[in-house]
């Protein structure tokens, strides 16, 4: 008997797993492998010994008991619950932010349209060229940001001057 036959037999033994299909349910190639293995085992003592050892090893493996302690389980459950709460809060916060953003965008769009119409009406009443009231509209829209920027710059300058005078 060649070594390939022994190795094939041992692989079949090792891989004969926990699936407990009846002989008729097995695929035909598996059935023929099993028949070949049975025939081999009848004539080969060393592979028979390997099969016995494999069965004992598997039995021994299953007999190694590893159990989780109660404290590990409860700590995990507490951590998971805490994280779930955190994730729920984050999701709610995100939802709130996205709702606010949508509302602000809608308001901005609506007020732009209303303001545009207002400036158009005023321009017509004052018999101004359309470019004039359009520039007025632009300045009106940009004005709050412009004022804020100027104030911030002035504040920085003021602070810089004061720090300089303290040092001087």
């Amino acid at each position, binding site marked *: 008997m060649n070594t390939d036959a022994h190795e094939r037999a041992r*692989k079949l033994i*090792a891989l004969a797993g926990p699936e407990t299909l009846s002989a008729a349910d097995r695929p035909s190639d598996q059935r023929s492998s099993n028949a070949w293995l049975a025939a081999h085992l009848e004539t080969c003592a060393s592979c028979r010994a390997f099969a016995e050892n494999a069965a*004992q090893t598997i*039995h021994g*493996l299953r007999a190694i008991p*590893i159990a989780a302690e109660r404290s590990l389980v409860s700590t995990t*459950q507490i951590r998971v619950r805490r994280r779930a709460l955190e994730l729920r809060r984050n999701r709610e916060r995100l939802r709130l932010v996205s709702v606010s953003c949508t509302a602000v965008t809608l308001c901005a769009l609506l007020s732009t349209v209303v303001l545009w119409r207002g400036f158009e009406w005023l321009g017509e009443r004052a018999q101004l060229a359309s470019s004039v009231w359009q520039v007025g509209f632009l300045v009106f829209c940009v004005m709050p940001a412009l004022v804020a920027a100027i104030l911030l710059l002035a504040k920085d300058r003021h602070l810089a001057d004061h720090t300089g005078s303290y040092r001087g």
Partner: protein
Amino acid sequence: MSSMNATAFYFESSMAQESTEIARGLRRRDADLLDRLIEQYQHRLLRYLVYLTGRRELAEDLFQETWIRVLERGHQFNDKYAFSTWLFSVAHNLAIDHLRRKQPASLDGLLNDNDEDAPFDVPATGRASAFDLTVQREQSEHIAAGMQHLPAEYREALVLRFQEGMSLEEIASVARVPLGTVKSRIYRGLSALEPWLKGAQL
């Protein structure tokens, strides 16, 4: 024969239903469902992680991280597969990530080189005769010792095959390796444990 098929069909359909319910609960991040799952899989998951890492303390840390990951990525669970297969693959990935942070990739680094650290303790339990119990206990002790000398990927394949009863395909999907690799790991792992069993019989 037909009754066996009917039983198999019933078993498969109830498994599929269970997976669907778990998937639905995980998408909702249902904390009660997670509590139940942690209880249900506590020993199996810890045992897998202890075998995989060879270190009880690390296994316990990864146990907790696995469930946090299950909570965070529950929406990724595909109910076409068994929950246990997905759970073990989440645990496997966490163990790999942990190892990559410490040293270059692969599970090889998890080979136990510390003999004093014995995570696979074998307490005396069972209902067999005192003699059988002693023999069994000795065998298990020797096999447990042998396990600590095996590469982690062999230990993983052996625990998934012989303790979890997974199919070769399921093991391949947990360990993310080809089927042929799974087969060779099981064969080599079992063969490597043989001398340890013989030691037990001396």
